[in-house]
Every structure is written in C-alpha cells, then in structure tokens.
C-alpha cells in the first residue's frame, strides 16, 4: 500500500513537472563534474519582482521589462568543465529530444566537429511561447529555457543589448532562417 502511494506520488510529481514545461534532466550529474556552474531559476513572483526593479528610464532595461511582462519562467543551466568528455552526446540528445515538433520548432541547428548549437522556438503563429538555446562545446554546456509569451517586437528591440544579436524574430517565419551545418 505504501509502495503504491509512493508510486502515485512520484508519478504525480513527474506529471506536475512536465506540465510546467521545464526541461527535465539530471543537472546534478553535470554539476558534480563542473568547475564552474551557473543556475538561474526565475519564475512567478521572483520574475515579476526582478521586473519591478528594472529601470523604466534606461532603454535596455525598459526593453527587458516589456519582454518579461508575459514570461512565466527563465531558466539557465551552464556548466564549464576543466576537461573534455564530461558530458556525452546522449546527454545533449536527452535534452533535445524533449523539444519535439509540432510544439517546438528547431529554427537553428549548427553542428560542427566538437560543437553543437541549437535554437528552438515554440509559437502559436502570433507570439512565441517559449525559447530554448542548447549550446554544447567541448568544455561547456549551456541550456537556456524561457517559458511564456515572448513578444517578437520586444525580442527584436533587445537586439544589440546584452549581447543579443540584431535578428528579425517573427512567429510567421518561426524565428531566424533555419541553418544546418554538418
């Protein structure tokens, strides 16, 4: 009976996590091997609080404030390793396999010898509902996930700020032109 209750509880937790839309992965496994790690988890009230502290007077912060309005969560996991081979291709595949079509569109997929970069967008045709960037370098793995309504105009306005390139994000074109290099 206890086992059954535990199993139901576990399944409920798993379902709850899936419903939030967050990528699931054993991040602790990577964190244990990393020499530097960044973990940003901003959601709900904390995200709104961050927005309140952004200055409306500074253009770049005002643009971020506008962008954050519709967001539900911002998650960044970045790991730097002192040597190569600390994560496997299967690890990256495990993350990317959660971003399936038609819900997610892979708008960029650049694969080089030891590096892969991919950008995924979730769109309802008018607005973006999510953005994921997966960047895998020999000694670094970074996964960025932004959940919530992303106003393309607000995203475009941020081009040039915070290192964000000036790109024309548009849900109709489903983001920048897909490019695949192998």
């Amino acid at each position, binding site marked *: 009976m206890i086992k059954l209750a535990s199993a139901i509880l576990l399944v409920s937790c798993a379902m709850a996590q899936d419903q939030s839309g967050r990528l699931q992965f054993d991040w602790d496994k990577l964190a244990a091997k990393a020499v530097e790690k*960044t973990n*940003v988890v*901003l959601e709900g009230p*904390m*995200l709104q*609080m*961050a*927005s*309140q*502290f*952004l200055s409306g007077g500074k253009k770049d912060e005002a643009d*971020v404030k506008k962008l*954050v309005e519709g967001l539900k969560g*911002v*998650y*960044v996991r*970045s790991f730097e390793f002192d040597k190569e081979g600390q994560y496997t291709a299967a690890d990256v595949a495990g993350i990317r396999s959660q971003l399936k079509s038609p819900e997610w569109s892979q708008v*960029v997929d*650049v694969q*080089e010898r030891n590096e892969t*970069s991919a*950008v995924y967008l979730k769109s309802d045709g008018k607005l973006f509902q999510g*953005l994921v*960037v997966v*960047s895998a370098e020999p000694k670094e793995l*970074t996964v*960025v996930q*932004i959940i919530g309504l992303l106003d393309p105009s607000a995203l475009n306005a*941020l081009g040039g*700020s*915070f*290192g*964000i*390139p000036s*790109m024309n994000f548009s849900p109709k074109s489903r983001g*920048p*032109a897909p*490019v695949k*290099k192998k």
Partner: protein
Amino acid sequence: MSELEQDLRNVLRRQDPPEGFTERVLARTRQHSAPSASRWIGVAIAAGLLLAAGNFEYRQYEGRKAKRELLLALSITGNKLNIVHQKITDLNKRTTHD
C-alpha cells in the same frame, strides 16, 4: 508640661485626612500605571516599524538579486545567440564564396 512638649503635642496630634483624600490617592495610583501601558504600545509600534523596515530591506535585497539574475540570464542567452548568429553568418559567407 513644658512649652516645648505642648508644641509637639499640637503638631503631632491625630488628625483625620481631608475629605476625598483616599479617592485622590487611588486616582493618582491609576495615573501612574497608565504610562506603563503606553510604554508597551510604544515598544510594539517600534517593533512593528523595525519589522516593516527589515521586510522592506529584505524585499529590496531579493529584488536586486532577482534583477541581477535576470540580466545574467539574458546576457548568457544573448551570448549564445550571438555565437549561433556568428556561425550562421560565417557559413553564409563561405557558401556565397563557394
């Protein structure tokens, strides 16, 4: 009885308190206990203000921290998007040259 003794007797003779003396003493006693209650109210107000100030400071700290994290997240996102953008630009240039 000497004159001195007579004077002392006059001064120290038993005398009833004036009318309303007891009530006045009791009223004065009550007045003395009143500042004690107001002192507690003062302490409570001071503690409340201190808590409010602490809460405000804590929210300020949390807000600034959240803002820093948000800008860090955007900076990392921007950096990675920039790398991707650069790779695409390089690839397009190479494709054009080829």
